[in-house]
């Protein structure tokens, strides 16, 4: 009987020792912080009706861009012929150091 008690005490001591060691090694230090517990809203907030939460509309596929008509293509061709006067964006220039 005494022998059993001693074995149980040794096992408990081993478990406690393992816990102490694991705490020292801080195994959970890199884990993300626990999510804060949400507090209950204040009374006035709680009284505010919730925003209508209609079900999100089903995601619709974007309508395909209509191909230009022959007339539109011709206008684009003609515009190129009369001079493409749209502006090209300026290319970024690396910063320079002012002369010292």
């Amino acid at each position, binding site marked *: 009987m005494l022998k059993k008690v001693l074995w149980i005490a040794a096992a408990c001591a081993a478990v406690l020792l393992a816990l102490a060691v694991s705490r020292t090694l801080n195994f959970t230090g890199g884990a993300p912080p626990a999510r804060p517990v949400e507090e209950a809203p204040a009374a006035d907030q709680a009284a505010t009706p919730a925003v209508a939460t209609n079900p999100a509309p089903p995601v619709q596929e974007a309508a395909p861009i209509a191909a230009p008509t022959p007339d539109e293509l011709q206008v684009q061709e003609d515009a190129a012929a*009369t*001079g493409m006067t749209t502006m090209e964006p300026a290319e970024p220039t690396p910063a320079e150091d002012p002369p010292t």
Partner: protein
Amino acid sequence: MSANKHEKRPGKDMGAYGLRGGRLGRCLALALAAPLALGSATAQPTAPVLPLPPAASPVPPPPPPPVEIAALSADQVQTALKVLAVADQHGLQPKDYLPAGLPQDGALSAAQNEALTEGLLRYAHDVRIGRMDPDKFPELWQVRPAAYDPSADLAKALADGRLQAWLDSLPPRYSGYVALKRGLARYRDIAAKGGWKAIPEGGKLELGSADARVPALRARLAAEDPQVVATGSATFDKPLEEAVIRAQRRYGLKPDGVVGAGTLSYLNQPVGQRVLQIIANMERWRWLPPTMPATRVQVNSGAAIVTLFQDDKPVLSMKAVSGKKGDETPMLVSSIHSVVINPPWNVPTRIANEELWPKERANPGYLERNGYRVIPVAGGQPRLQQASGDSSALGRFKFDFDNPFAVYLHDTPSKGGFDRYARQASHGCVRIEKPRALADALLAGDATWTPEAVDRQLEGDKTVRARLSKQVPVYILYWTAFAGADGQMHFRSDPYNWDRELLQRVGALASGVKA
């Protein structure tokens, strides 16, 4: 640190951007002074007149004080050398800007530093507003840049440490210019690889032709068209026909897929010629203002095309007929202020003397049969006026804008002229294919001149002038090389020979520009 002093160079100052010269009467000169039977619409308040670009002052302003430009630092020297060495990317010649005898490494002497600064100033001037001397602008080239002395800008760029950014900001930022720059690199690359060989002359080549020249045609087309395989059989097949059609579209020819003498002459232009053509057009881009109004009418007299832009987007385009060689449509900038419905044609004296009176003498009654009346002029030669109506040389619409040449856009009863592919046939005015559509677009929103009101006016022959509530700028330009909507380079035939003239004037031909 030494300092170089650079005075402004009055001799290099361009005349103010805008209208100069005064050769009147090139086209239908008297039409502007036509005694129009004005309808009720003319009671509209006069539209505010857009400020025209200032005319050149007859008395030059006193020269500004000299700008002090600091000597270039070692880094700035490297930046300058790098930019000037690739000036040919803009169709310029590096040797015009890079002083001779500069050491590859090491510091510059004060004199070399100053010479390099001078080169930067010349480059900045040329890449921004072009190489044309103000005294060398022909009268018909009224699209001219504002004077630009880069001294102050260079001094500031150096002081702020922004030399590279400033140099990058100088060339035009228009898509048309940037596309030409890419095209220049591409055609120089073609030239560096040996260009293309001329296709021997001979009979027509068309679908089904079995001809020893077909492989040469394939190789020629492949040089410009990435869709074409350079090698293949000696039989003219369908893919080759499609390639010929694409090439004909790039050259503004009738896209029939048949290689006759006309198409062959375009294909056989050497690549160096195309390089020079691109350089000439890049030079003209530098004459435009830095930005364009969002709503405008653009005309390319070289390709005889008109486009209306609204909110900076092309919304309407049409074929045109521009002036023929000897009666060239001038390059100019103005603003359309009114649409004349049912315009009469007041015949310019030159056209009356050279064309109409001889017809009357050969066929008595010709003038009366064609709606002309003779208007006596006290103490002078009688003048001719053609009545408004369907047979009027001006058709049903005339789009008026101020200019020293009395040219304008107008309708025509000769619609067949638009079916041609070389459409330089007028006396200098621009005949347009869709005058009603342009009138509707310009008059859109006008409470008086609704489409229904225009329709009613067109039922008769009464002349009315509809003044635009807001004037619309018009740019008559001359392009013979441009990138199409597909990015491929398109070329026209230089119908006025202005490319060659421009290249000669800026010395690009005489000095053998790098091709």
